[in-house]
């Protein structure tokens, strides 16, 4: 198992390298640079600044300079936020984004799993349809619509929640629900499908036939196996919360790094962009690995060599 984990982490290195390289060069393909402004500055000022940030060097040289710094753990200065380094910006925003993401996932699990299980045990009944319809709202309505509506009613009209910001519960409810709703829909469907499959299997029938009470059958036998698909979904979802929160963070004024993902690219803040991309990919790799490990615990049939 340990060897397996080590090997997976080792393969992550080339993956990250490829991603950094692609992002580095793709960013430079985008027109304009970090210092292009509406008011054109005199050529000599432009030149001095580019020299200072090494933007005048051949791209390959810049690339190796960047990779060199990266190996030392230095993501460089932000081109836009001149008072901060990329390391600082990411360190400041990450906890908020993670908090938002994990609360959203928690919400999604609390809503999604019961809805999915309920639906599975009463397949094709009104309960099934109701549970699935409710959970489907999340994947059918864009999250900016959900969030705007929540804010409008609860914060602007009823004034029981706060419009924007992060930290207090009355600021966190709207963004968490809006972000979590989508995941709850996926989770509900996955757990429904997973449960359906398990219910049909022999060992459940056997358990039922043995006369075990229904509730016990459900808890002891089906849930653990039926939720495997949910677990595997949590990997990509865990990483997606970093990027998926872009809209949510923008509308709700949450100071996370989700919006940096796109904004830094639009600002041509090269270093910050690569920094967020590394973070995202790193999380994706770690989450996927974690899922595989959890999988092994849940399903003893799987063996990692």
């Amino acid at each position: 198992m340990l060897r397996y984990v080590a090997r997976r982490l080792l393969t992550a290195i080339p993956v990250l390298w490829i991603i950094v390289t692609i992002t580095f060069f793709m960013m430079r393909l985008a027109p304009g640079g970090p210092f292009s402004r509406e008011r054109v500055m005199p050529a000599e000022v432009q030149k001095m600044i580019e020299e200072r940030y090494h933007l005048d060097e051949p791209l390959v040289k810049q690339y190796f300079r960047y990779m060199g710094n990266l190996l030392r753990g230095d993501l460089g200065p932000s081109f836009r936020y001149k008072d901060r380094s990329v390391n600082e910006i990411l360190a400041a925003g990450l906890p908020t984004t993670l908090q938002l993401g994990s609360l959203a996932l928690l919400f999604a699990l609390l809503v999604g799993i019961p809805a999915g299980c309920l639906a599975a045990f009463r397949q094709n009944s009104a309960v099934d349809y109701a549970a699935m319809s409710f959970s489907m709202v999340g994947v059918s309505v864009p999250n900016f619509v959900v969030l705007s509506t929540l804010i409008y009613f609860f914060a602007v009209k009823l004034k029981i929640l706060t419009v924007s910001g992060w930290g207090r519960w009355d600021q966190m409810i709207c963004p968490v629900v809006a972000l979590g709703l989508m995941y709850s829909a996926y989770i509900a469907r996955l757990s429904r499908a997973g449960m359906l499959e398990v219910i049909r299997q022999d060992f459940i029938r056997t358990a039922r036939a043995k006369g075990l009470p229904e509730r016990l059958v459900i808890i002891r036998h089906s849930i653990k196996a039926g939720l495997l698909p949910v677990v595997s979904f949590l990997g990509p979802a865990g990483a997606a919360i970093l990027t998926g929160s872009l809209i949510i963070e923008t509308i709700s004024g949450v100071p996370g790094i989700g919006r940096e993902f796109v904004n830094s690219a639009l600002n041509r803040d090269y270093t910050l962009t690569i920094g967020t991309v590394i973070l995202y990919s790193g999380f994706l790799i770690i989450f996927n690995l974690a899922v595989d490990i959890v999988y092994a615990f849940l399903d003893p049939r799987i063996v990692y060599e």
Partner: protein
Amino acid sequence: MTNENKKNSAAADVQPVKGTSLWKDAWRRLLKNRMAVAGGALLILIACAAILAPALTPYAFDEIHLSDGNHPPSGDYPLGADHLGRDLLTRILYGGRVSLAVGIVATFVSIIIGVSYGAAAGYLGGRADNIMMRFVDILYGLPFMFLVILMMVIFHNAPAEKKLYLLFIGLGAVQWLTMSRITRGQTLSIKTKEYIMAARTSGAGAFRIVSRHVIPNLLGPVIVYATLTVPAVMLEEAFLSFLGLGVQAPMASWGSLASDGRQSLDTYPWQMIFPGLALAITLFSLNFLGDGLRDALDPQMKDQK
């Protein structure tokens, strides 16, 4: 338009593959699922409305009536008008064409890439399979949505129609990975079936085996996954629209209409509600149809996003 055909095509598939009662069984199971049937019927209705848009409305999609700006729903404007006095119903009907086209074409792109890649990996097996799937693992670590955004930025100069193709290809490329995994898994299991062995011993080439036997048997899961991919793509298009990187004005999609309308939630709520509803109803139907198809065609299938 397109969804109607899509559904018909799904139905059409039932006939040619004979020899097993699987397809007929599936069809019967699908018809039993009331929500799936309702979803399919709604989709046909919506698609027809989008196709017949020019006949259904007296306005052009970009026709402005400045003095009727923000007109509430009324006889002249059944769903109200937008800021420039454009009929919202017309905008939604035409926007449906864009949204549905993006959903379907991008899904089609993902099917082409994903199925060919997955089938090849699964059929070749062994080392080739190992390498190909490792490659997919690597790509899973890539922030695809971010790359799509970068692509939209880099190819900014493309004319409106070409930008749409970019959208198709970009969003399709985001989705092909899961498709390829599903295909590979199916191919691996099909490969070991007796009729493949029989074909092989009778001297059929790899190409013939894949095209004659493997791919037709993949259709079930692929169709199911496709119905789930369409909504995902449509939401991604809405996300791009929120960033202003989606379809080019004055063309609109449901996503861009809802995103614009979000700003008017307080003052002219119909501008968000109706496009949001159009999107929600469509995705709702697609999701129910997709779930129904999965239940019907392949109850064993799992691990979908």
